[in-house]
Protein backbone atom coordinates (compact mmCIF):
# COMPACT_ATOMS: atom_id res chain seq x y z
CA UNK A 1 0.00 0.00 0.00
CA UNK A 2 1.36 3.39 -0.96
CA UNK A 3 1.87 5.98 1.71
CA UNK A 4 -0.68 8.70 2.34
CA UNK A 5 0.43 11.95 0.68
CA UNK A 6 -0.08 14.74 3.26
CA UNK A 7 0.28 18.47 2.70
CA UNK A 8 -0.07 21.28 5.22
CA UNK A 9 -0.81 24.88 4.39
CA UNK A 10 -0.29 28.01 6.45
CA UNK A 11 -2.68 30.89 5.78
CA UNK A 12 -3.51 33.69 8.24
CA UNK A 13 -2.54 32.07 11.51
CA UNK A 14 0.22 32.27 14.07
CA UNK A 15 1.83 28.91 13.13
CA UNK A 16 0.75 27.58 16.50
CA UNK A 17 -1.18 24.73 14.88
CA UNK A 18 1.94 23.66 13.01
CA UNK A 19 3.86 23.85 16.29
CA UNK A 20 1.22 21.63 17.86
CA UNK A 21 1.68 19.19 15.00
CA UNK A 22 5.40 19.12 15.79
CA UNK A 23 4.48 18.61 19.44
CA UNK A 24 3.41 15.09 18.58
CA UNK A 25 7.14 14.54 19.18
CA UNK A 26 8.24 10.95 18.77
CA UNK A 27 4.86 9.99 17.35
CA UNK A 28 5.94 11.91 14.24
CA UNK A 29 8.03 8.87 13.45
CA UNK A 30 4.95 6.67 13.61
CA UNK A 31 3.16 9.04 11.25
CA UNK A 32 6.14 9.33 8.94
CA UNK A 33 6.11 5.57 8.52
CA UNK A 34 2.67 5.76 6.96
CA UNK A 35 2.51 9.16 5.30
CA UNK A 36 4.72 11.47 3.29
CA UNK A 37 4.65 15.18 3.98
CA UNK A 38 4.80 16.35 0.38
CA UNK A 39 4.21 20.04 0.93
CA UNK A 40 4.36 22.16 4.08
CA UNK A 41 6.00 25.22 5.64
CA UNK A 42 7.98 22.58 7.49
CA UNK A 43 9.50 21.12 4.32
CA UNK A 44 11.24 22.58 1.32
CA UNK A 45 8.89 21.99 -1.60
CA UNK A 46 8.01 25.26 -3.35
CA UNK A 47 5.07 24.18 -5.50
CA UNK A 48 1.91 22.57 -4.25
CA UNK A 49 1.84 19.09 -5.84
CA UNK A 50 -0.69 18.21 -8.52
CA UNK A 51 -2.34 15.72 -6.23
CA UNK A 52 -2.30 15.06 -2.48
CA UNK A 53 -4.48 12.79 -0.38
CA UNK A 54 -4.92 15.06 2.59
CA UNK A 55 -4.26 18.71 3.30
CA UNK A 56 -4.30 20.26 6.79
CA UNK A 57 -4.81 24.00 6.62
CA UNK A 58 -3.96 26.40 9.40
CA UNK A 59 -5.20 29.97 9.43
CA UNK A 60 -8.07 32.07 8.19
CA UNK A 61 -8.52 33.36 4.66
CA UNK A 62 -7.52 37.01 4.87
CA UNK A 63 -6.13 38.02 1.49
CA UNK A 64 -6.75 37.49 -2.18
CA UNK A 65 -3.67 35.30 -2.22
CA UNK A 66 -5.00 33.17 0.66
CA UNK A 67 -8.19 32.64 -1.25
CA UNK A 68 -6.43 31.71 -4.50
CA UNK A 69 -4.16 29.24 -2.72
CA UNK A 70 -7.07 27.70 -0.86
CA UNK A 71 -9.07 27.19 -4.05
CA UNK A 72 -6.09 25.63 -5.80
CA UNK A 73 -5.36 23.36 -2.87
CA UNK A 74 -8.99 22.31 -2.69
CA UNK A 75 -8.83 21.21 -6.32
CA UNK A 76 -5.66 19.22 -5.81
CA UNK A 77 -6.53 17.55 -2.51
CA UNK A 78 -8.66 14.54 -1.67
CA UNK A 79 -9.50 15.48 1.89
CA UNK A 80 -9.33 19.02 3.25
CA UNK A 81 -8.93 19.55 6.99
CA UNK A 82 -9.49 22.88 8.72
CA UNK A 83 -6.80 22.74 11.40
CA UNK A 84 -7.35 24.97 14.38
CA UNK A 85 -9.73 27.81 15.25
CA UNK A 86 -8.47 30.31 12.65
CA UNK A 87 -9.27 27.91 9.83
CA UNK A 88 -12.48 26.77 11.55
CA UNK A 89 -13.99 30.07 12.75
CA UNK A 90 -11.69 32.91 11.70
CA UNK A 91 -10.66 33.28 15.35
CA UNK A 92 -8.08 35.97 16.15
CA UNK A 93 -7.55 37.19 12.56
CA UNK A 94 -11.32 37.69 12.35
CA UNK A 95 -11.23 40.12 15.27
CA UNK A 96 -10.54 42.84 12.72
CA UNK A 97 -13.77 42.08 10.86
CA UNK A 98 -16.04 44.52 12.67
CA UNK A 99 -13.53 47.23 11.73
CA UNK A 100 -12.94 46.30 8.08
CA UNK A 101 -9.56 46.06 6.36
CA UNK A 102 -9.11 49.71 5.48
CA UNK A 103 -9.83 51.08 8.92
CA UNK A 104 -7.49 48.51 10.41
CA UNK A 105 -4.64 49.37 8.06
CA UNK A 106 -5.15 53.06 8.77
CA UNK A 107 -5.12 52.46 12.51
CA UNK A 108 -1.96 50.37 12.40
CA UNK A 109 0.15 52.13 9.78
CA UNK A 110 -1.02 55.72 9.86
CA UNK A 111 -2.65 56.61 13.16
CA UNK A 112 -0.32 54.79 15.51
CA UNK A 113 2.95 56.57 16.27
CA UNK A 114 5.46 55.33 13.69
CA UNK A 115 8.35 57.05 11.96
CA UNK A 116 7.11 57.09 8.41
CA UNK A 117 3.38 56.53 8.37
CA UNK A 118 2.43 54.74 5.16
CA UNK A 119 0.31 51.75 4.27
CA UNK A 120 2.51 49.09 2.65
CA UNK A 121 1.16 47.88 -0.66
CA UNK A 122 4.08 46.80 -2.81
CA UNK A 123 4.47 43.06 -3.31
CA UNK A 124 1.84 42.38 -0.68
CA UNK A 125 -1.39 40.51 -1.28
CA UNK A 126 -4.50 42.65 -0.95
CA UNK A 127 -6.43 42.18 2.25
CA UNK A 128 -10.00 40.98 2.11
CA UNK A 129 -12.47 43.10 4.03
CA UNK A 130 -13.04 40.18 6.36
CA UNK A 131 -10.85 37.34 7.57
CA UNK A 132 -13.03 34.26 7.18
CA UNK A 133 -12.95 30.54 7.88
CA UNK A 134 -12.19 28.09 5.08
CA UNK A 135 -15.71 26.74 4.70
CA UNK A 136 -16.93 30.13 3.55
CA UNK A 137 -14.97 29.48 0.34
CA UNK A 138 -14.59 25.74 -0.23
CA UNK A 139 -16.09 22.55 1.16
CA UNK A 140 -14.23 21.32 4.23
CA UNK A 141 -14.14 17.63 5.09
CA UNK A 142 -13.00 17.73 8.70
CA UNK A 143 -12.93 20.51 11.27
CA UNK A 144 -10.47 20.37 14.15
CA UNK A 145 -11.20 23.28 16.50
CA UNK A 146 -8.72 24.40 19.12
CA UNK A 147 -6.24 27.20 19.55
CA UNK A 148 -4.17 25.32 18.86
CA UNK A 149 -5.68 21.83 18.82
CA UNK A 150 -3.68 19.68 21.21
CA UNK A 151 -0.95 17.51 19.75
CA UNK A 152 -2.96 14.49 20.91
CA UNK A 153 -5.98 15.72 18.97
CA UNK A 154 -4.01 16.24 15.78
CA UNK A 155 -2.35 12.88 16.18
CA UNK A 156 -5.72 11.20 16.75
CA UNK A 157 -7.08 12.81 13.59
CA UNK A 158 -4.12 11.79 11.43
CA UNK A 159 -4.07 8.30 12.91
CA UNK A 160 -7.75 7.92 12.10
CA UNK A 161 -7.09 9.05 8.55
CA UNK A 162 -4.38 6.46 8.13
CA UNK A 163 -6.61 3.79 9.65
CA UNK A 164 -9.47 4.87 7.39
CA UNK A 165 -11.76 5.62 10.34
CA UNK A 166 -12.06 9.39 9.87
CA UNK A 167 -15.71 9.30 8.77
CA UNK A 168 -17.88 10.76 11.52
CA UNK A 169 -14.82 11.14 13.71
CA UNK A 170 -15.54 12.94 16.95
CA UNK A 171 -12.46 14.57 18.42
CA UNK A 172 -12.09 15.61 22.02
CA UNK A 173 -11.59 19.29 21.42
CA UNK A 174 -13.52 22.55 21.35
CA UNK A 175 -13.27 26.17 20.24
CA UNK A 176 -10.49 27.86 22.18
CA UNK A 177 -9.09 24.58 23.49
Amino acid at each position, binding site marked *: MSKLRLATLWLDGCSGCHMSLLDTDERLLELAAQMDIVYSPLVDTKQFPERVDVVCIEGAVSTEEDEARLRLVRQRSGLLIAMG*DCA*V*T*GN*VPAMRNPLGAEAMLRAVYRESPVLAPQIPIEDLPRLHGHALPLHRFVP*VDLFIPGCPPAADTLFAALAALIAGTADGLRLDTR*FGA
Partner: protein
Amino acid sequence: MSAPILTLTIDGRQVSGLASETVLQVAKENGIAIPTLCFLEGLSATGACRLCMVEIEGSPRLHPACVTPIQEGMTVTTDSKRLFGYRRAIVQLLFSERNHVCAVCVANGHCELQELARAFGIDHIAFPCRHPALEVDASHSRFVLDHNRCVLCTRCVRVCGEIEGAHTWDVKNRGIRIQIVADLDTPWGAAATCTGCGKCVHVCPTGALAEKGKSMAEMRQKRPFLPYLVANRAEERK
Protein backbone atom coordinates in the same frame (compact mmCIF):
# COMPACT_ATOMS: atom_id res chain seq x y z
CA MET B 1 -50.67 24.55 51.85
CA SER B 2 -48.75 22.34 49.52
CA ALA B 3 -49.42 21.82 45.86
CA PRO B 4 -50.80 18.44 44.77
CA ILE B 5 -48.37 15.87 43.44
CA LEU B 6 -48.64 14.96 39.78
CA THR B 7 -47.16 12.06 37.89
CA LEU B 8 -45.83 12.23 34.38
CA THR B 9 -43.45 10.48 32.04
CA ILE B 10 -40.14 12.02 31.01
CA ASP B 11 -38.03 10.15 28.48
CA GLY B 12 -39.92 6.97 29.24
CA ARG B 13 -39.49 7.25 33.00
CA GLN B 14 -42.36 7.60 35.43
CA VAL B 15 -41.64 10.62 37.60
CA SER B 16 -43.62 12.89 39.88
CA GLY B 17 -43.50 16.48 40.96
CA LEU B 18 -45.48 19.24 42.61
CA ALA B 19 -48.14 20.89 40.48
CA SER B 20 -46.28 24.18 40.86
CA GLU B 21 -43.12 22.80 39.24
CA THR B 22 -41.97 23.06 35.68
CA VAL B 23 -40.87 20.28 33.38
CA LEU B 24 -37.30 21.49 33.74
CA GLN B 25 -37.37 21.30 37.54
CA VAL B 26 -38.88 17.84 37.64
CA ALA B 27 -36.47 16.57 35.00
CA LYS B 28 -33.54 17.92 36.98
CA GLU B 29 -34.77 16.39 40.23
CA ASN B 30 -34.78 13.07 38.44
CA GLY B 31 -31.35 13.41 36.97
CA ILE B 32 -32.53 14.12 33.44
CA ALA B 33 -30.41 16.89 31.96
CA ILE B 34 -32.07 19.36 29.61
CA PRO B 35 -29.73 21.93 28.07
CA THR B 36 -30.37 25.54 29.12
CA LEU B 37 -28.72 28.89 28.67
CA CYS B 38 -30.97 31.78 29.67
CA PHE B 39 -32.36 29.82 32.62
CA LEU B 40 -30.65 30.19 35.98
CA GLU B 41 -31.97 28.78 39.21
CA GLY B 42 -32.94 31.61 41.49
CA LEU B 43 -34.08 33.95 38.71
CA SER B 44 -37.41 34.15 36.91
CA ALA B 45 -37.58 31.98 33.79
CA THR B 46 -38.15 33.71 30.46
CA GLY B 47 -38.14 30.96 27.85
CA ALA B 48 -35.95 33.06 25.59
CA CYS B 49 -33.03 30.91 24.43
CA ARG B 50 -35.24 27.99 23.30
CA LEU B 51 -32.55 25.40 24.11
CA CYS B 52 -34.72 23.65 26.68
CA MET B 53 -37.48 22.94 24.16
CA VAL B 54 -39.03 19.53 24.67
CA GLU B 55 -41.66 17.49 22.87
CA ILE B 56 -44.94 16.82 24.64
CA GLU B 57 -47.09 13.99 23.38
CA GLY B 58 -50.31 15.19 21.80
CA SER B 59 -49.01 18.70 21.12
CA PRO B 60 -47.75 19.63 17.68
CA ARG B 61 -45.64 22.42 19.17
CA LEU B 62 -42.40 22.33 21.10
CA HIS B 63 -42.42 23.62 24.66
CA PRO B 64 -39.68 25.39 26.61
CA ALA B 65 -39.21 23.20 29.68
CA CYS B 66 -38.23 26.14 31.90
CA VAL B 67 -41.68 27.75 31.72
CA THR B 68 -43.91 24.75 31.06
CA PRO B 69 -45.79 23.60 34.17
CA ILE B 70 -46.09 19.86 34.55
CA GLN B 71 -49.47 18.26 34.04
CA GLU B 72 -50.89 14.99 35.23
CA GLY B 73 -50.19 12.21 32.76
CA MET B 74 -48.11 14.27 30.35
CA THR B 75 -45.47 12.46 28.31
CA VAL B 76 -42.32 14.46 27.70
CA THR B 77 -39.41 13.73 25.39
CA THR B 78 -36.34 15.81 26.20
CA ASP B 79 -34.05 14.52 23.50
CA SER B 80 -34.67 13.48 19.92
CA LYS B 81 -32.94 13.83 16.60
CA ARG B 82 -35.16 16.79 15.83
CA LEU B 83 -34.54 18.55 19.15
CA PHE B 84 -30.84 17.89 18.86
CA GLY B 85 -30.82 19.50 15.42
CA TYR B 86 -32.68 22.57 16.65
CA ARG B 87 -30.40 22.94 19.67
CA ARG B 88 -27.31 22.70 17.50
CA ALA B 89 -28.74 25.33 15.17
CA ILE B 90 -29.58 27.68 18.04
CA VAL B 91 -26.08 27.48 19.52
CA GLN B 92 -24.59 28.13 16.09
CA LEU B 93 -26.91 31.10 15.58
CA LEU B 94 -25.61 32.53 18.85
CA PHE B 95 -22.01 32.09 17.74
CA SER B 96 -22.81 33.75 14.42
CA GLU B 97 -24.56 36.70 16.04
CA ARG B 98 -21.62 38.45 17.69
CA ASN B 99 -17.84 38.18 17.90
CA HIS B 100 -17.05 35.11 19.96
CA VAL B 101 -13.32 34.42 19.98
CA CYS B 102 -12.92 31.69 22.58
CA ALA B 103 -9.14 31.60 22.31
CA VAL B 104 -8.71 35.07 23.79
CA CYS B 105 -11.75 35.15 26.08
CA VAL B 106 -11.55 35.63 29.83
CA ALA B 107 -14.13 32.89 30.21
CA ASN B 108 -12.36 30.35 28.00
CA GLY B 109 -12.89 27.01 29.64
CA HIS B 110 -15.64 28.31 31.94
CA CYS B 111 -18.12 29.47 29.34
CA GLU B 112 -21.58 27.96 28.99
CA LEU B 113 -21.83 28.78 25.29
CA GLN B 114 -18.50 27.14 24.60
CA GLU B 115 -19.51 24.13 26.64
CA LEU B 116 -22.84 23.81 24.78
CA ALA B 117 -20.95 23.77 21.49
CA ARG B 118 -18.67 21.05 22.79
CA ALA B 119 -21.55 19.02 24.18
CA PHE B 120 -23.42 19.17 20.87
CA GLY B 121 -20.31 18.30 18.87
CA ILE B 122 -20.35 21.63 17.06
CA ASP B 123 -16.98 21.77 15.31
CA HIS B 124 -17.71 24.79 13.10
CA ILE B 125 -20.37 27.44 12.61
CA ALA B 126 -22.47 26.67 9.58
CA PHE B 127 -23.94 30.17 9.42
CA PRO B 128 -21.82 33.09 8.29
CA CYS B 129 -20.88 35.29 11.24
CA ARG B 130 -22.28 38.79 11.31
CA HIS B 131 -19.21 40.58 12.75
CA PRO B 132 -21.10 43.52 14.23
CA ALA B 133 -19.00 46.41 15.52
CA LEU B 134 -19.68 46.43 19.26
CA GLU B 135 -18.18 48.29 22.15
CA VAL B 136 -16.40 47.22 25.28
CA ASP B 137 -17.51 49.21 28.32
CA ALA B 138 -14.53 49.34 30.67
CA SER B 139 -15.67 52.45 32.53
CA HIS B 140 -16.42 50.62 35.77
CA SER B 141 -13.56 50.48 38.24
CA ARG B 142 -13.87 46.76 38.91
CA PHE B 143 -15.84 45.21 36.07
CA VAL B 144 -15.96 45.21 32.32
CA LEU B 145 -18.81 44.61 29.85
CA ASP B 146 -17.88 43.27 26.43
CA HIS B 147 -20.92 43.31 24.13
CA ASN B 148 -19.02 41.16 21.63
CA ARG B 149 -19.40 38.19 23.95
CA CYS B 150 -22.97 38.79 25.10
CA VAL B 151 -25.63 36.20 24.21
CA LEU B 152 -28.50 38.38 25.48
CA CYS B 153 -29.74 35.82 27.98
CA THR B 154 -30.72 38.74 30.28
CA ARG B 155 -29.52 36.94 33.40
CA CYS B 156 -27.71 40.15 34.40
CA VAL B 157 -30.88 42.19 33.91
CA ARG B 158 -32.88 39.77 36.01
CA VAL B 159 -30.39 39.34 38.83
CA CYS B 160 -29.96 43.10 39.09
CA GLY B 161 -33.70 43.76 39.15
CA GLU B 162 -35.00 40.71 40.99
CA ILE B 163 -32.25 39.99 43.49
CA GLU B 164 -30.18 43.13 43.98
CA GLY B 165 -33.20 45.38 43.39
CA ALA B 166 -31.10 47.98 41.59
CA HIS B 167 -32.38 47.46 38.05
CA THR B 168 -29.28 49.09 36.62
CA TRP B 169 -29.45 46.87 33.56
CA ASP B 170 -32.12 46.62 30.94
CA VAL B 171 -32.32 45.92 27.22
CA LYS B 172 -32.36 48.64 24.60
CA ASN B 173 -33.56 48.60 20.98
CA ARG B 174 -35.14 45.48 19.57
CA GLY B 175 -34.51 42.54 17.26
CA ILE B 176 -30.98 41.92 16.15
CA ARG B 177 -29.96 45.37 17.50
CA ILE B 178 -30.82 44.70 21.14
CA GLN B 179 -28.11 45.38 23.69
CA ILE B 180 -27.70 45.29 27.41
CA VAL B 181 -27.76 48.84 28.69
CA ALA B 182 -27.10 50.56 32.02
CA ASP B 183 -29.37 53.39 33.18
CA LEU B 184 -29.95 55.86 30.35
CA ASP B 185 -27.35 54.24 28.09
CA THR B 186 -24.83 55.51 30.61
CA PRO B 187 -21.28 54.15 30.80
CA TRP B 188 -21.37 51.48 33.51
CA GLY B 189 -18.90 53.34 35.67
CA ALA B 190 -21.17 56.38 35.69
CA ALA B 191 -24.42 54.50 36.27
CA ALA B 192 -25.83 56.00 39.46
CA THR B 193 -28.07 53.05 40.24
CA CYS B 194 -25.27 50.42 40.20
CA THR B 195 -24.34 49.24 43.67
CA GLY B 196 -21.21 47.52 42.40
CA CYS B 197 -22.36 44.23 43.91
CA GLY B 198 -21.04 42.21 40.99
CA LYS B 199 -23.94 39.74 40.91
CA CYS B 200 -24.38 40.33 37.19
CA VAL B 201 -20.76 39.37 36.58
CA HIS B 202 -21.17 36.09 38.38
CA VAL B 203 -24.34 35.03 36.58
CA CYS B 204 -23.02 35.80 33.09
CA PRO B 205 -22.81 32.54 31.13
CA THR B 206 -20.02 33.86 28.90
CA GLY B 207 -17.19 36.33 29.22
CA ALA B 208 -19.39 39.32 28.44
CA LEU B 209 -19.31 40.47 32.05
CA ALA B 210 -16.04 39.95 33.86
CA GLU B 211 -13.88 41.23 36.63
CA LYS B 212 -11.25 43.67 35.51
CA GLY B 213 -7.67 42.49 35.31
CA LYS B 214 -8.62 38.94 34.49
CA SER B 215 -6.73 37.50 31.57
CA MET B 216 -7.58 34.73 29.13
CA ALA B 217 -9.44 31.86 30.83
CA GLU B 218 -9.11 33.46 34.27
CA MET B 219 -12.71 34.53 34.83
CA ARG B 220 -14.47 31.95 36.98
CA GLN B 221 -17.99 32.86 37.95
CA LYS B 222 -19.25 32.05 41.42
CA ARG B 223 -22.47 30.36 40.37
CA PRO B 224 -23.82 28.69 43.51
CA PHE B 225 -24.28 31.98 45.35
CA LEU B 226 -27.68 32.58 43.80
CA PRO B 227 -29.82 29.67 45.07
CA TYR B 228 -28.13 30.15 48.44
CA LEU B 229 -29.01 33.83 48.49
CA VAL B 230 -32.61 33.19 47.47
CA ALA B 231 -33.06 30.47 50.09
CA ASN B 232 -31.43 32.55 52.79
CA ARG B 233 -33.66 35.53 52.09
CA ALA B 234 -36.80 33.41 52.24
CA GLU B 235 -35.57 32.10 55.61
CA GLU B 236 -34.85 35.60 56.95
CA ARG B 237 -38.30 36.83 55.95
CA LYS B 238 -40.07 34.18 58.05
